[in-house]
């Protein structure tokens, strides 16, 4: 480096981080990727509890027909905030946060490429959520127009309160945080890898984070522009999305889903990554078809950019457009199916250890396939016309985001908790958590497929006493309370394990990726010495010098970028 910018001095001293000072300031001021990662995880846990309480209130209201427990206005606020919170302030930041913690460790780096930007991303996420939730304390109440805020409902004449303004502002702020995080990840993964860590040896979780980060870089600006236009409409009287004044409500839908569909892959690709790390370790086999897992992820990322209007079949875009978007959406089933085959083949013939991470990963495959199958069904236009805006859709996306992403997230928490904290989580409590989650989740959502087919519309605060609807909804509500119980067990497990969990040691699962080569929790500087990387499983090669994965590989001392 021949010149430097004096106003941003390169740090010559170690960055503030773990171990130096455990006071609050060392967290707030931290630019250490591990501390920021932990703060992401704590933040998402808080939002998860809030979003979960909102869901419980929704399900309590729906427990019996004709219930008047909540006012329609309150109900609208609750489902809007539940969806927005779970997507933008739980699943997405959890995956970003766990990535921030793990990616540098997995590629043998000291930190992210831009540690300060990393901290900025986190604080934008945290304060974006505060901005969104502040709306509850205003006179107008929280946003109440659904998580996709269709125009013109979200526009001035129809929403005179400030809810949608807070919604757009909060998401705008946290979205910019996610975008910066995506940029940071891309540069980190492409330039900071340790010598020998070629793209073909990259852990699959890192591959998934890379594709996700590219999606963030290219689709967050889509929704940012839409938020800007919505805010200009609401605050300065612009007319982008108001048909009464010459604007176009459909344009909002195109812009929203142009982002919204890739967003679901942002929510699930890192989850695929977690599962692709957990399954091989607990099957004691390398992943089956590494290239196919990585390649199919890239395919999903690209395909996801061209299928948004499958959310708009009911709009009336015409048969040609509908046919294209239907077929293109179904194509995504191919790369996704490839992954499922990879995971199953990895387990096939392995010595499977059904510890809690593996239980969640296995359940993930099953639940996600259910969500994928209902997804293929509603990618078909005539089926979508029948079930759109019904509980069938609610069931579908909960199977993908809860049964998919969240199950994988739980797998990841149990898997990496020892690395994060130095202590094991309790297996007994973990198994209770797992079984309660499986029972509660399927009880809540499977029956909603039938409710949807029977015609129960989503987003209505109460319903008439149609045959079976009352009892089916009651079953769903009981399931929701079982999920709540499982979350209590989960949080209890975290608290207990933090205080008296068994010491984990460096590598309790006998895993093979680099994050397990350092101590638990890792020191501020991550690695004393990064082990040589000459295969996809550096720690396997280290432990079995006689039978390395790539016997012909040379030890590289010069990194891919010098």
């Amino acid at each position, binding site marked *: 480096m021949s010149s430097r910018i004096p106003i941003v001095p390169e740090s010559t001293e170690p960055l503030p981080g773990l171990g130096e000072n455990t006071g609050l300031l060392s967290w707030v001021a931290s630019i250490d990727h591990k501390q920021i990662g932990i703060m992401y995880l704590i933040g998402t846990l808080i939002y998860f509890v809030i979003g979960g309480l909102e869901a419980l209130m929704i399900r309590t209201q729906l427990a019996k027909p004709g219930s008047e427990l909540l006012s329609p206005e309150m109900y609208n606020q609750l489902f809007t905030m539940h969806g927005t919170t779970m997507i933008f302030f739980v699943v997405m930041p959890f995956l970003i946060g766990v990535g921030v913690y793990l990616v540098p460790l997995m590629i043998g780096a000291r930190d992210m490429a831009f540690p300060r930007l990393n901290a900025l991303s986190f604080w934008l996420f945290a304060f974006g959520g505060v901005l969104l939730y502040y709306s509850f304390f205003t006179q107008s109440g929280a946003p109440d127009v659904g998580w996709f805020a269709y125009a013109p409902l979200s526009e001035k004449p129809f929403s005179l309160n400030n809810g949608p303004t807070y919604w757009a502002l909060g998401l705008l702020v946290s979205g910019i945080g996610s975008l910066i995080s995506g*940029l940071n990840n891309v*540069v980190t993964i492409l330039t900071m890898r340790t010598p020998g860590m070629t793209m073909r040896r990259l852990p699959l979780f890192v591959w998934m984070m890379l594709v996700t980060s590219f999606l963030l870089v*290219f689709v967050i*600006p889509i929704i940012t522009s839409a938020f800007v*236009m919505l805010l200009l409409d609401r605050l300065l009287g*612009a007319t982008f999305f108001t048909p009464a*004044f*010459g*604007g176009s409500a459909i344009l909002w839908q195109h812009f929203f889903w142009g982002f919204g569909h890739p967003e679901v892959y942002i929510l699930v690709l890192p989850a695929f990554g977690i599962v692709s790390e957990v399954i091989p370790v607990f099957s004691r086999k390398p992943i089956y078809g590494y290239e196919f897992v990585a390649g199919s992820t890239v395919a999903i990322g690209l395909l996801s950019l061209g299928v948004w209007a499958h959310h708009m079949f009911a709009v009336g875009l015409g048969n040609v457009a509908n046919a294209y978007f239907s077929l293109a959406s179904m194509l995504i089933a191919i790369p996704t199916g490839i992954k499922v085959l990879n995971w199953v083949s990895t387990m096939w013939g392995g010595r499977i250890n059904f510890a809690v991470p593996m239980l969640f990963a296995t359940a993930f495959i099953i639940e996600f396939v259910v969500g994928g199958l209902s997804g293929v069904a509603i990618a078909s236009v005539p089926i979508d016309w029948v079930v759109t805006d019904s509980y069938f859709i609610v069931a579908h996306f909960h199977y993908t985001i809860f049964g998919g992403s969240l199950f994988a997230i739980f797998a990841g928490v149990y898997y990496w908790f020892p690395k994060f904290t130095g202590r094991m989580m309790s297996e007994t409590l973990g198994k209770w958590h797992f079984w309660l989650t499986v029972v509660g989740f399927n009880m809540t959502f499977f029956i909603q497929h039938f409710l949807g087919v029977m015609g129960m519309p989503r987003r209505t605060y109460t319903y008439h006493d149609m045959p079976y609807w009352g009892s089916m909804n009651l079953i769903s509500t009981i399931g929701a309370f079982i999920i709540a119980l499982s979350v209590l067990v989960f949080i209890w497990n975290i608290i207990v394990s933090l205080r008296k969990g068994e010491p984990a040691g460096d590598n309790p699962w006998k895993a093979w990726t680099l994050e397990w080569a350092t101590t638990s929790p890792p020191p501020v500087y991550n690695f004393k010495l990064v082990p040589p990387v000459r295969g996809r499983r550096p720690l396997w090669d280290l432990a079995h010098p006689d039978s390395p994965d790539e016997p012909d590989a040379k030890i590289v001392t010069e990194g891919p970028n010098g």
Partner: protein
Amino acid sequence: MANNRMMIKFFIASESIFFLMLILAYVNFHNSVTTGPTAKSSLDPYVTGIFSLFLLASSFTVWLAGKSLKNRNRSGLKLWLFATIVLGAVFIFGQAREWFGLFGRGITISSNVFGSTFFTLTGFHGFHVCVGLVMLSVLLGLTLAGDFKGPKSDAVECVSLYWHFVDGVWIVVFSVIYLWAFL
């Protein structure tokens, strides 16, 4: 470091999508204005065209600034950075003049879809020019204070890339708004 330059390139890619969406919104409404001002009825392509030349010229001067840095020509660097700032400022002055002219005739962001898309698109572009001017001023200040001895500097190269990008966006915006309406 390669990091900084890679970062700014991906950032520019991301920003391109942002502007693409604003341009798409403009294009979407180009033919759907039924009442109120349109590009044809309210804009002056010649005046804006002339001010656009200043922005185009500033891309050239920022390139010269980079060349001076490479040749360790510090007075050249100072001169061309200063010239870039002046040219960019003239462009912004032209845009402000145009905007206030429109306001004077009662044409605002809330007039109709033309107003909404026109002011949003040119406004965000102008905002990016202003951010660029701030960064160029910081570079100039640091150069005057003795930094950037050459032959390389990530800061200068990144700001220069950003400035070319802002310039390129304007070529598209000018084509879509002015040339489309008047050619």
